[in-house]
């Protein structure tokens, strides 16, 4: 029920619809055509039982079903539920009637408005970029349904109300379920502008509508790419080079071809693929391949040697990412100086579902089924690999068994591999599923880059920070990709985010970047730059606080007086954690850290126990988050819990290392991740807000590492300067 009027915040909707044009919309909006001006929808002989589909984001069936079309990948972060919640809220839908289906690849209708013209999911942007768009879509659909009821009943729209998928006319005690209004709605125009709900009347937003995928993900029926099967489908495994940058010199597929069930052995740009009737046959066939590799152009260095080079580079001139005042002079003149360096390893994303894609390719078309995260980029790369036009490539996005950034890569590695295999197989329409193994995943590159951070700070005798100098050395994620244009003056923002934009009030700040090149492919990993910068900043500010003789909370708060949202989460976390409740017993410690990532503010307080053998146990993490309007507090809480567990696993165990170019890890035995017995008790507190919503998938990862490191210092007096944390006994 709408009491107060708010104008639609989307004056550009008209432009959007104009761009979308008739052809692409017609594909979706059955029985509808947009006039060239986008001014009104004209009924085009609705077929019996046609659903009411006033825009690209929803359909209402005469059976009262509400189908929300999700332009974003559901990889665990709750995007399907969030998207459906926004639409259903403005539509005033019955939540139990709402289902979600994935959108096809189509940048005109389904671009991520944060990315511009690309359809894709990432940067914790699903809710932020959908908020206004989907409120508008839901509200306009509701407006037409109201008009339909008004027309059917010959009453003014103003006398009608809605609730849970039903239109009511109080005076005449009439009511009509949305489904019964579809027929009339199909004959009515969609309004150009619409009144949105006053947030105080929200019923679903801010509530706890259950996840649309929870039941299917609890009884084994949720369908992932692993589970997707087409008649006659074959399974392919690809043997990739053991070194990054190596290529096939020659191969002998005789033994592989002789394995029962193996259908064909084919060479593709990425290696040699075995195509078989089952995974097991393909696996045995791949194991039997004999390949000679050309590693003349391969990366053969060790990660330890790379880090030595990075360490040297940190003392060389670098590019400036931020410069205010004269940090060098301030530090040189300071009464007290603090310095430290921090080393971060390569990290694999290791989503639970090893990468996989099903491709059906023939001379004129390519169909792809995958947990696809960059639909229109993947569409373009697949078309290129197949020798087709992007229009000939269709993408069906399925549930992804995790991603953490891995599926959002600009070379579309696993998609291109699958298409290349289908092409080499004969492009005869045979469906082929490319399946990666865990070893393929851990060896597969596109890691969070390795970084070296060197930091210096100066303080007055009274303990006030006067200078801050931060040098970051490491690979660029965006260099040599389609996002390279986003690199300004040599600075890849993803290398310095969380460092160049620190909120602390320090008069002299210098943040420098030295970008390296190696043959190891790199990629964004959950929370991207802040996965290392926040550790360096928040561990080092703690060292500065200690040098100033002030506790970490008080020291930070004073430097954040002008940053109300950041200060508020810091205070909330400290309060809920009992920061001032006195010292902890021997062997225990409390540490704090705060971050802004993707416009969301998160502070965390960690409590640890370090036993006499140096074993670290993280007992509790208290988290405060401000992500603007909380769309679904339970999902926000879940993302903070999960982000904390994900980040904690990385700082405790995570490292991809190279020895003479060869990745030394291969599976969860030596690329360790967090397990049940290591999960701390997590408490999440959400700051009430009416600001536009921001993301929650990634930001929770950023502060946990430094909060724990600072807690370890509080417990032991030892600082951690190299990740992952030292093994048992070393602290």
């Amino acid at each position, binding site marked *: 029920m709408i009491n107060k009027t708010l104008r639609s915040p989307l004056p550009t909707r008209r432009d959007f619809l104009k761009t979308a044009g008739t052809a692409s919309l017609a594909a979706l909006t059955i029985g509808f055509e947009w006039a060239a001006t986008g001014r009104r929808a004209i009924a085009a002989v609705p077929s019996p039982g046609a659903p009411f589909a006033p825009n690209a984001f929803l359909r209402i069936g005469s059976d009262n079903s509400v189908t929300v079309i999700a332009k974003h990948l559901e*990889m*665990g*972060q*709750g995007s399907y539920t969030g998207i459906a919640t926004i639409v259903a809220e403005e539509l005033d839908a019955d939540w139990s009637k709402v289902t979600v289906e994935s959108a096809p690849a189509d940048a005109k209708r389904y671009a991520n408005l944060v990315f511009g013209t690309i359809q894709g999911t990432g940067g914790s942007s699903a809710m932020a970029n959908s908020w206004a768009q989907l409120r508008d879509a839901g509200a306009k659909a509701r407006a037409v349904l109201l008009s339909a009821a008004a027309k059917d009943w010959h009453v003014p729209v103003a006398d009608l109300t809605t609730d849970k998928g039903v239109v009511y006319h109080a005076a005449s005690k009439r009511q009509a379920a949305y489904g019964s209004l579809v027929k009339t709605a199909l004959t009515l125009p969609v309004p150009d502008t619409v009144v949105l709900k006053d947030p105080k009347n929200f019923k679903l937003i801010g509530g706890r509508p*259950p*996840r649309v*995928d*929870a039941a*299917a*993900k*609890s*009884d*084994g*029926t949720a*369908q*992932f790419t*692993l*589970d997707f*099967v087409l008649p006659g489908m074959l*399974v392919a495994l690809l043997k990739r080079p053991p070194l990054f940058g190596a290529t096939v010199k020659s191969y002998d597929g005789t033994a592989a071809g002789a394995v*029962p069930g193996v259908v064909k052995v084919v060479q593709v740009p990425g290696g040699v693929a075995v195509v078989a009737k*089952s*995974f*097991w046959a393909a696996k045995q066939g791949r194991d039997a391949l004999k390949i000679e590799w050309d590693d003349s152009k391969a990366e053969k260095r060790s990660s330890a040697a790379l880090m030595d080079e990075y360490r040297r580079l940190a003392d060389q001139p670098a590019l400036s990412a931020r410069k205010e005042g004269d940090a060098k002079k301030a530090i040189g003149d300071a009464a007290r100086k603090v310095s430290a360096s921090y080393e971060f390893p390569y990290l694999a994303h290791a*989503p*639970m*579902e*090893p990468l996989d894609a099903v491709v059906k390719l023939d001379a004129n078309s390519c169909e792809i089924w995958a947990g696809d995260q960059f639909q229109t980029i993947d569409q373009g790369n697949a078309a290129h690999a197949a020798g087709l036009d992007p229009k000939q490539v269709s993408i069906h996005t399925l*549930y*992804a*068994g*995790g*991603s*953490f950034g891995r599926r959002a890569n600009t070379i579309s590695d696993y998609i291109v591999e699958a298409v290349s295999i289908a092409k080499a197989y004969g492009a005869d329409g045979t469906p082929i599923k490319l*399946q990666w*193994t*865990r*070893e393929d995943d851990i060896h597969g590159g596109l890691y969070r880059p390795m970084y070296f951070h060197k930091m210096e700070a100066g303080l007055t005798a009274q303990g006030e920070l006067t200078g801050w100098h931060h040098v970051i050395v490491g690979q660029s994620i965006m260099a040599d990709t389609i996002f390279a244009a986003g690199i300004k003056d040599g600075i890849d923002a993803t290398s310095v985010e969380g460092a160049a934009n620190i909120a602390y009030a320090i008069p002299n700040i210098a943040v420098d970047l030295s970008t390296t090149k190696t043959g190891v492919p790199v990629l964004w990993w959950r929370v991207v730059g802040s996965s290392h910068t926040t550790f360096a900043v928040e561990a080092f500010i703690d060292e500065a606080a200690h040098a100033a003789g002030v506790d970490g909370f008080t020291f930070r708060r004073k430097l954040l007086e002008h940053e109300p949202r950041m200060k508020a989460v810091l205070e909330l976390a400290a309060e809920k954690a009992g920061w001032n409740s006195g010292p902890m017993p021997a062997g225990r410690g409390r540490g704090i850290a705060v971050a802004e990532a993707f416009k969301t503010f998160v502070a965390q307080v960690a409590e640890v126990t370090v036993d006499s053998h140096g074993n670290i146990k993280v007992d509790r993490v208290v988290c405060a988050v401000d992500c603007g309007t909380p769309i679904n507090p*339970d*999902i926000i809480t*879940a993302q903070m*819990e*999960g*982000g*904390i*567990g*994900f980040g*904690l*696993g990385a700082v405790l165990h995570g490292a991809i290392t190279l020895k003479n170019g060869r990745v030394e890890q291969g*599976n*969860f*035995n030596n690329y360790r*991740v*967090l*397990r*049940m*017995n290591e*999960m701390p*008790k*997590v408490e999440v507190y959400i700051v009430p807000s009416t600001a536009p919503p921001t993301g929650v998938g990634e930001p929770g990862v950023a502060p946990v590492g430094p909060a724990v490191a600072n807690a370890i210092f509080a417990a032991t007096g030892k600082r951690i300067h190299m990740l992952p944390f030292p093994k048992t006994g070393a602290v």
Partner: protein
Amino acid sequence: MPTTFVLNGQSATLDADPAMPLLWALREVAGLHGTKFGCGMAMCGACTVHLDGQAVRSCVMPLSAAAGREITTIEGLKSKQAKAVQAAWVELQVPQCGYCQSGQVMSATALLEKNSAPTDADIDGAMSGNICRCATYQRIRAAIHSAAQSIKA
């Protein structure tokens, strides 16, 4: 070569390489897709099934080892413990990406079938072989306690 065993309460004969891991026989021969592939070396638990009521990793168990035994997959869960676990999973909104959750539910069910009131330490012992990269561990723990309570009630 056919292997005969009891699959989800019914006799089943799967004609496949006896050395094929049970996981792939279940998925590609029997067509049961609830059991997932995560690591192939019993390190992650995504492939957990019950062998005569015990939680086992089907990715390293050859099909031949199932001969004459009882195998239960998530599709065949019927016990009151299983139903309580699955209800608690939904009630507490455990799943995120959901990929590991079949294995988690299988391990949790096997735990509750043996231990009606597991402690946190019992849960650590039974569940630490099941990796969840989304780190839904806190909710898994709470859901197991909740399921235990609901069975008792």
